[in-house]
Structure formats: structure tokens, C-alpha cells
């Protein structure tokens, strides 16, 4: 039986997630979309109504009122709002999948550490879009070679970077760097983001540099990255590794590498284009990761031991 869910925050992210669940939700079923404005003032809620999804217009009060209808809440509001909502979800016995930078719960990348965090917590955080795109590949390198240092650069079309990202761009770089270490397994991580206004808008693309020992079996790394790419594609259809690891030695760079080499990998994320344009892969990977998380939790019946269990005790 499907697990029922609500989306809180009917903005771009919430609306995109709604279409994804309606299109390809299997174990997750969308029960309600909740915002804070009347339907006629909210494009997202209007879209929900048009697609026969029930709506709520009173924010957290709507969650309280309808909490017995669903088990999972997708948070698509803001860090500030999620910090306020999180204790309410906990009291109501709801499992929260947080797409904001609040990071109340542990950083979670479905293909890397979901099984580790679920069961420990009923609130998981989706890191950042760049984190969802790059952390799995750092992990893929780290599982066959020890990653001393990982660096990611995210290139995002200006048009797909909303006001939230722009007002607090530091939270992207700091959170992503943390995730490269705590989830990706790098001993040290660094994240960089660039916004490019070119027209037509550029596809979301990311570069990952990992610094590993010169004796690293590069073929094993390639193979590990290939396997990881396939796993990610099960929940992010537009995810593609565009450059397999290229090896740089001390001769190819202007600084001292000691006994290390650099493996450089690139990837692109093309959005599915349901609600947001295909170039906005940065938004797409966030909603895809959230849905992927929800699906895996629902399929594995993981909710019985955590969220619902707490509520009924």
C-alpha cells in the first residue's frame, strides 16, 4: 500500500515535486499540497487543484489539521520555516524530508547513506542541489581509493538560481563542502558555485576534482563511478557523467602534488521539464532526490519503526 505524503511550500520546488510524484510516484502518493496563501494567489496551489490534489492554505495549521491523512512531509519552504516546523512534525509523528538548507536532520544522499540515517531519525536533509549531484561520485571514488581532498564546482544558469540561493550563497558552499566530507568521505572538502547568464541557459553542470594517492587503480575508480551513475539514474533520469575521470599529475598543474594525483570528473543534470525548464537540473536533482528518498523509505517499510511508531507509542 502506498505511503501518503504532503508537500509543504507550493513554490517552484514544491510544484516540481508535485508533478514528479503524480508522474512517477510508486510507493509514495501525494495527499495534499500546503501553502500559506489563498489558492487564487498561489500558482502552486492552483496547479494542485487543477490536478485534483487536496490543498491547505494555513501553513503549519493545515498540517496539524490533516496530519492523520499522511505519514511523510516534504518541506519545500525555507530554512527558517523548516526550523519552526520540524518540532511540530516530530510531535505529529510525521517523517520529514527537508529540501531547505536548515539541516535539522542529517545530510542524506539517497544512493549513499539513506539506509544509515533512516531508523536513526525522522527528519532527513537533502544537503544542496550541488551536493546531491557530486557527493555520490566522491563517495564512488572514496569506496575504492582514499580521497584526501574533494572539490566540486557547480555551474548553474542564472535563471535557475532563485532569490533564496542568491541571498545566502555561502550556505550553498559551506553546506556542500560539509557534505563532501561527512557523506562523501573526503578528508577535506571544498565547494564552489558559479552563475552563468548565457542565453540559451546552460544546463546544470558540475566538476569534481578528487585528490588521491598516485597508486590508485584508476580503472577501478572508473568502474565505481559508472556503477554509481546507473544507480543515480534510477531516481534522477537526467543525470549523466559527461567526462570520465581524467588523470592529472604534478606535471599538469602549477602546484606541488606530492605523491598524489587528481581525478577530474564532470557531470550534467538535465531536468525532466515537467514544471521547470530542462536546464534547471539544479532544482530537478533536489526534487528527484527527495522523491527518491521518499520512495525508498516507503518501499522498505522503514516508516513503521520510526515516525508512526513514535506517534503511536
Amino acid at each position, binding site marked *: 500500500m502506498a505511503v501518503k505524503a504532503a508537500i509543504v511550500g507550493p513554490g517552484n520546488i514544491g510544484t516540481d515535486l508535485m508533478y514528479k510524484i503524480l508522474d512517477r510516484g510508486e510507493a509514495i502518493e501525494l495527499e495534499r499540497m500546503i501553502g500559506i496563501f489563498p489558492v487564487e494567489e498561489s500558482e502552486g496551489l492552483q496547479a494542485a487543484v487543477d490536478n485534483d490534489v487536496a490543498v491547505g492554505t494555513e501553513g503549519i495549521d493545515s498540517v496539524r489539521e490533516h496530519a492523520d491523512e499522511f505519514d511523510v512531509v516534504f518541506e519545500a519552504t525555507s530554512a527558517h520555516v523548516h526550523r519552526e516546523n520540524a518540532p511540530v512534525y516530530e510531535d505529529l509523528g510525521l517523517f520529514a524530508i527537508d529540501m531547505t538548507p536548515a539541516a535539522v536532520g542529517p545530510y542524506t544522499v539517497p544512493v549513499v547513506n539513506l539506509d544509515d540515517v533512516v531508523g536513526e531519525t525522522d527528519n532527513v536533509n537533502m544537503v544542496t542541489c550541488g551536493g546531491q549531484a557530486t557527493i555520490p561520485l566522491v563517495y564512488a571514488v572514496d569506496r575504492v581509493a582514499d580521497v584526501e*581532498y574533494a*572539490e566540486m*564546482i557547480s*555551474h548553474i544558469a*542564472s535563471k535557475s538560481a532563485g*532569490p533564496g540561493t*542568491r*541571498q*545566502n*550563497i*555561502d550556505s*550553498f*558552499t*559551506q553546506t556542500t563542502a560539509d557534505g563532501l566530507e561527512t557523506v562523501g568521505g573526503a578528508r577535506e572538502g*571544498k565547494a*564552489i*558555485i*558559479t*552563475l*552563468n*547568464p*548565457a542565453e540559451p541557459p546552460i544546463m546544470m553542470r558540475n*566538476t569534481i*576534482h578528487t*585528490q588521491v594517492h598516485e597508486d590508485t587503480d584508476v580503472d577501478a575508480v572508473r568502474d565505481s563511478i559508472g556503477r554509481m551513475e546507473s544507480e543515480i539514474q534510477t531516481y534522477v533520469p537526467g543525470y549523466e557523467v*559527461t*567526462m570520465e575521470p*581524467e588523470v*592529472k599529475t604534478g606535471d*599538469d*598543474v*602549477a*602546484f606541488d602534488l606530492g605523491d598524489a594525483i*587528481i581525478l*577530474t570528473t*564532470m557531470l550534467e543534470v538535465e531536468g525532466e521539464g515537467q514544471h521547470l525548464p530542462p536546464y534547471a537540473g539544479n532544482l530537478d536533482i533536489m526534487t528527484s532526490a527527495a522523491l527518491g528518498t521518499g520512495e525508498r523509505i516507503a518501499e522498505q517499510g522503514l516508516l513503521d519503526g520510526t515516525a508512526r511508531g513514535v506517534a503511536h507509542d
Partner: protein
Amino acid sequence: MTDRDVRLVDMTLRDGMHAVDHSFTPEEMADVAAALDEASMDVVEVSHGDGMGGSSINYGFSAAETGEYLDAVVPQLTDTKLSVLLLPGIGTVEELDLAVDRGADVCRIATHVTEADVSQEHFEYVTDRGLEATGLLMLSHMAAPETVLEQAKLMEEYGADAVYVMDSAGAMLPSDVRDRVGLLADELSIDVGFHAHDNLGLAIGNTLAGIEAGATTIDGCLRGLGAGSGNAQMEVLVGVLEKAGYEVTPDFFGVMDAAEDVLVPMVSDDEMPEIDNDSLLLGYAGVYSSFLRHTRRAGEKYGIDPREILLALGEMEVVGGQEDLITDVASRLASERDAAAESDD
């Protein structure tokens, strides 16, 4: 200040870091800073070429940490002010915090010319701490004058004391400079600055055009040491501006001595910028000047003419910070060449 006063910012120890692959040591920085202070330079800027936090695989690791550079330079400065650079998206307020603690007087915050709204939190942080804040609009040649103005107004609103038109690709003609600087000088209530690169051989001429159009704060480097073909050469600027009747603070001979006696012995022939075929292409194709040395290395690794890589990057409209795309383009051009060779067989 009269309207004939021009403030000079020496970036030998910042933009110059691109030319030496970020290899200056704190001791070298201390020596150059001491010579510039002796010459009564208005401001010296110190950091990794891509700003604080720029030390990375993508842009090259610097020889020392930001804190070590600042600690070496601060004791050398008496009347000369100390500036640092930050590019939001690369560095964060953590780096600003460090710079404030170590004694920076000015924080310059740079964004791509259309993306000023990523800098609000950084301007607020700097002005809250009581420092001077300057906004830099990079690659200003890529936007129309009206767009540059709209973005400059955002920085003014966030608290900038001055906003610069940055010709980061050395791609502007004097008329491009006049149009942009002139509009900003007319419409803003804060100072307007100009930053040149010499990729088309126009660094000094463009700077004069900018000053005539109303710029009152100007960037340069000793011997022009900076990314691409280098920046406006500071010794030349001091001499030219004096001849043109502007009031400048630095001592002409002092600046010349700092360049010839202190800087030149630290820099190899390979590092000292000149207008060569590759760096000329930066200006022609409108590519961020610091791409030069990374592109040369990629060209060598993949056996591709750096000019072809730069042309392709220009067509892609790459912006500052996208140095990783150099490898992408070079490896793509190499595969295309190999595929063409195979089909010829």
C-alpha cells in the same frame, strides 16, 4: 579630494598572483608591500588571485594561507591601506571575518556583471564591521551599459563605497569604457572605478578614457603583473596621470623602484606577462584573463592550440570561476581531432 584626484590601488599581490600561479610567499609579499608603502601607494590588495578562498585545485593552490599573507603584509604598511578580495561563490563571510581580524581596511567584493545580488550578505557583513567596501562588476564588457548601471545600483544599495567597471577580459575598446564608466559616474552617488587588462594593448589608454569619463579609483600592478597580458602598469599610470595633470599620491620614482628593484627579481621570464598570441586571444574572444595559464597547460596536455580552446570558451560565454571548463573543452577538441584523424584513415 578634488575632482582631479585619482586613487590608485596596487594589485601586484592579488591579480599578480595569477601570473605567478599563486606562488608568492608571505616574505615576498612583505617585501613588495614595504616598497609600495615606501612609495606612498594609496591601497595594496593582497590575496589569492581569485580572492580569499580561491586556493583550490580549480584555480591553483597558493603557496600560503590568506592569514599568513595578511600577517606578513600588515606590519609593513604605515599610511597605505590594505585591501582584500572576495568572490561570493568561491569565498564566504568566514574569509571576510578572518581579513577583518587580521587588519584589512578595504574589502572588495566581486561578482559577474549580471549577478550582483549574490553579494548582499557580504556587503552587509563588511559595512557592519566598519570597513570600506568596494563592489567589482567583472567582465563588464559582456553587459550593456544600462545593465552595468542596474547591477552597480544594487551594490550601492547594499552599502558599497565605490563600484568598479572591471574589464576582466581586457576586451573593451575606449568607447566601451567611456559608455559604462560615464553612465555610472552620472547616475551613482558613490565613487566609480576602472580595472584594465592589457590583452588588446589598451590598458593605459582605456584607463585614461575611464578617468576622463569620471572614474576616480583605478587599479594597476607593478610592471603590469597580472592575469592574461597583465593589468595597467602602475609606474606608467603614475607618470601618465601626472603628465595629464591629475593629482596622485604615490611617488613616481618610488613606484618605479618597487617594480624594478623589488618585484622584477622575484618573477621569471615565463611568468612576466606580455601581449603574446594566447593572451591577445583573451581580449579578442572576451575570455576572463586568468584562464590564460590554465589554458596553456591544458593545450599542452591535450596537444591543442590554446587559441582554439580560448575561442571555443569565448563562444560558450564562460564567466569567471569556470576554469574547469577549460579541461572539458580541451578534451572535447582532442577527441574531435582524433575522430577526424580516424575517419581520414
